[in-house]
């Protein structure tokens, strides 16, 4: 299915970054406003999907030479690791910690281990969605 689609391709170049930035925003904002790992991950994969539709599989592979199945694994390690981490401090599995840290230039930072867990969710979602789409899309030949 080699069709040249100039409008879609030009739009994609702009939109891709907008969606990406939005998805990252939504991922971090998730703790306070609607969003989080699931939506963020899905949006990111939506952006990559758009790229895939506008161009083709090979282009996406060149831009993002990532094995998405590894991404799933890394995500799971993050999620489980956060849980195990609390065991080290003699807390029940998956107890989160949070606190404010003062960093010289950036000012007050609110840090939360739940973000790490959510990052795991994010990575798994992106990995799963993309590996599904890539394997199905790659089966054309």
């Amino acid at each position, binding site marked *: 299915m080699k069709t040249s689609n100039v409008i879609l391709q030009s739009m994609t170049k702009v939109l891709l970054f907008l969606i990406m930035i939005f998805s990252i925003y939504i991922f971090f904002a998730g703790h*306070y406003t*609607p969003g989080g790992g699931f939506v963020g991950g899905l949006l990111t994969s939506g952006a990559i999907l758009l790229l895939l539709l506008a161009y083709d599989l090979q282009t996406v592979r060149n831009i993002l030479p990532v094995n998405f199945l590894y991404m799933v694994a890394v995500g799971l390690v993050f999620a489980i690791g956060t849980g195990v981490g609390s065991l080290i401090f003699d807390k029940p599995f998956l107890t989160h910690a949070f606190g404010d840290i003062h960093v010289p230039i950036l000012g007050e930072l609110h840090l939360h281990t739940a973000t790490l867990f959510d990052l795991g969710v994010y990575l798994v979602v992106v990995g799963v969605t993309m590996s599904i789409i890539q394997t*199905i899309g790659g089966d054309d030949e």
Partner: protein
Amino acid sequence: MEILMIFIAGILFMSATYLMLSRSVVRIILGTTVLSHGVHLLLLTMGGLKRGAPPLVGEEASAYTDPLPQALILTAIVIAFGVTALFLVLGYRSYKELGTDNMEKLRGNDGND
């Protein structure tokens, strides 16, 4: 509103069942998708509708909508997506391999049990 939603969920369940009972693989897959929509709506309705502000602390509201069904549904949506994708690929693979989307033809024959 709740009663209306229960009826909508009922209609979704009905169409989903009909689709899942058909012999076309595609219909069965679509049926599972519709079924999950029905389940989500029913679950949300059971938690009570429009009982207050969205479940975000800081909304200056006296009451919030029940966040628990929402969390459950969020999980369910993502799982449903994974399941649908798996079914899709199964249907797609079996069609490529066996050349039919008719479930009645995909029955194992007697020698295979």
